[in-house]
């Protein structure tokens, strides 16, 4: 089995195959437990390995401890206004850089422009369209893992 995996990997030279060997990992951050639970259930069903955090501090701790997430999805307003942007900035410094998604019920031109400066990969307004989120996340995570070929 292992030999077959290695043979296929050598033939394809692709991280797409490697990512198929493990579940992509997501960190979901929101101070509303209901949102966390719903997103966890929905995205777990899609084959992701989910970690959750209820605050900026908790998320930072997880990012430092785990070292690697394929994507970080965070609410914008939690214990502090626009603190999701700070988390996005921290996540953008991780290596490899995860896909960064921000969702908010308090979107404004100001915080959207700030998100653009991070830069954030996807900016969603609440209420979330879960099907769209799943589709976009899949595209971004696959594109990111494919991109690793070149690094």
């Amino acid at each position, binding site marked *: 089995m292992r030999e077959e995996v290695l043979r296929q990997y050598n033939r394809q030279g692709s991280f797409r195959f490697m990512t198929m060997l493990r579940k992509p990992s997501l960190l979901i951050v929101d101070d509303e437990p209901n949102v966390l639970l719903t997103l966890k259930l929905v995205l777990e069903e899609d084959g992701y390995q989910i970690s959750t955090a209820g605050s900026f501090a908790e998320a930072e701790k997880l990012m430092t401890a785990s070292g690697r997430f394929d994507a970080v999805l965070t609410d914008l307003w939690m214990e502090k206004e626009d603190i999701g942007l700070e988390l996005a900035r921290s996540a953008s410094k991780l290596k490899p850089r995860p896909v960064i998604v921000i969702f908010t019920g308090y979107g404004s031109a100001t915080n959207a422009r700030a998100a653009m400066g991070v830069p954030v990969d996807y900016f969603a307004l609440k209420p979330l369209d879960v099907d769209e989120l799943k589709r*976009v996340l899949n595209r971004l995570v696959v594109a990111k893992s494919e991109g690793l070929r070149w*690094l």
Partner: protein
Amino acid sequence: MSEWRGTKFALVVHPELSVLTQYQTLLSTNGFSTVVARDLPTALLAITQHYFDLAIVSSQLGEAGDGWPLAGVLHLVFPNAYIGVLVPGADLLTLQSAINSGVQEVYEITQSPQSVVSAAIAAAKLAESRKPSSEGSLQ
């Protein structure tokens, strides 16, 4: 690719010929080989024929908002390219479209082509210098 050198290609997509001419002149002066397109099919054809380092796209080509999917395609095909979009106003939904299309900056259509080109080139150079050296060797 940590330095800004060699022949760089730019794509400008805008429905007005006079605007395209201005952008082409300005970008050529700044060392870009510039390809222009007035509509989506021409822009898509250009994408198949060149590797673009910079693109300036109007958010309104045939109709309002049809420039966004093109910007998204440019981001997918040329992930290291700098993409700026000309918009009628930078409100929340416009900025959301920009982020979700992988656009680096939006410029109001009232801005002069000169200021857009200066800002775009400066931002592209900055982004290039911030990239890890290996990431620039995508091409």
